């Protein structure tokens, strides 16, 4: 019991998503590196963006690093949240950076990074976080970064060192992981989930022809949390969550 009490005393980074904060017993333990994993169209990016918008609204500078989709395009398709204002960006509370631009500036133009180049990338991200005083970070997606790291050793090293550097700076980070719907693990390379402090899984659940978006926290170091599956909705008031009904008849999932 003592261990549990100690875990629940850790300072929390409230995601601002009420349902998720309840699941996490108050929020993500500050400084945790969380893998947000799921197949396409399950709400990963929206969840992460909302985490950042709430952060910047509560004076925690937030940064979104886009790896695959240009930020301009992403912003055009963002949900018109009731709590989102463009001034968050102009006031320097919410930042968007395209990682390919960072690669270019660092001269990291090879398709595959070696150990040294992984170090350069971590240092570059850490510098940006330090200079902007970032408290919340999203990398979307870590899977796309991992494509360039190739070996499991490099991927492990990258996530471990990045997580450690960010945590030391009090930065709570969400790393987006893309998996195929049939995948039974939580990441493409199978090492990301083992190193991350937390794993949030989003998915699609088909029940008698109905398709429901689901969310489940399967791991979160530093807090007690629910491990049940919830149904989510992406709305202009943010992500809403309700328990998945079982009714003694729910199949699969």
């Amino acid at each position, binding site marked *: 019991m003592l261990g549990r009490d100690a875990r629940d005393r850790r300072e929390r980074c409230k995601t601002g998503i009420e349902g998720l904060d309840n699941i996490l017993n108050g929020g993500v333990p500050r400084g945790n590196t969380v893998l947000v994993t799921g197949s396409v169209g399950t709400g990963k990016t929206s969840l992460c963006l909302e985490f950042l918008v709430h952060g910047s609204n509560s004076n925690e500078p937030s940064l979104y690093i886009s790896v695959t989709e240009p930020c301009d395009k992403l912003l055009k398709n963002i949900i018109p949240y009731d709590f989102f204002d463009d001034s968050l960006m102009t006031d320097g509370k919410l930042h968007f950076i395209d990682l390919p631009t960072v690669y270019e500036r660092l001269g990291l133009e090879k398709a595959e990074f070696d150990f040294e180049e992984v170090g350069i990338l971590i240092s570059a991200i850490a510098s940006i976080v330090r200079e902007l005083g970032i408290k919340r970070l999203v990398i979307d997606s870590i899977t796309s970064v991992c494509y360039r790291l190739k070996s499991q050793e490099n991927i492990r090293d990258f996530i471990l060192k990045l997580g450690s550097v960010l945590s030391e700076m009090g930065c709570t980070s969400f790393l987006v992981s893309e998996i195929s719907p049939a995948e039974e693990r939580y990441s493409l390379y199978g090492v990301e989930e083992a190193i991350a402090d937390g794993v949030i899984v989003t998915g699609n659940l088909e*029940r*008698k022809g*109905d398709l*429901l978006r689901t969310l489940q926290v399967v791991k979160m170091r530093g807090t007690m949390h629910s491990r049940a599956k919830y*149904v*989510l*909705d992406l*709305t202009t*008031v943010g992500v*809403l969550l*309700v*328990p*998945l*009904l*079982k*009714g*003694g*008849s*729910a199949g699969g999932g």
Partner: protein
Amino acid sequence: MSVATLIAEKLDSFPESSAIALRIRQDQYFDVIRGILDIFAKKKELESIYVTSSIPCQSIMNALQVLEVDTEHIWFIDCISQVMMSVGEKHPHAIYVESPTMLENLMLKVEYLIRKAGGKTNLVILDNINSLAIHNNIKILSEFLHILVNNLRSKNSYTIIFSNEGFESEEMTNMLNLVCDETMTVEEETTREAG
């Protein structure tokens, strides 16, 4: 005293957070919704969320228009139009749920409308339990009602669940007795039964 006035008076005696099952006959239907929406909700200044699984919300809106009921503070969650492939033109006060089997989505839409209403007190009408029972088994329906009603109680909202008189199974009666504070049958003199 008219059925509409009678219903409004009875509801007025319940505190916020109450859940009431209302057993009504088809011929009383419009008098009942007028009593709830036009008299009770207006007097209490409630934001009304009308969940329909029996008839499309457009039909209810048309009826309210005929009855000259102000719909500015009434929002609809329609879980039957899409399954009937008859949504047509979407009404700005209506949200559509794909099917009455998507009970979680129904709860999510209620939550959404409550958030949109800000801090105002809400009235949620579930019309009706019999049609939901056509599409869902009693176990999942009981679980749904239990979660929905308790969630609404925690938000100080009123819940009114319609049931068609004469179409209730014993299981449904037990379920309504379990989740509601009171079950009422609409007669000329509305009667209260044990909750």
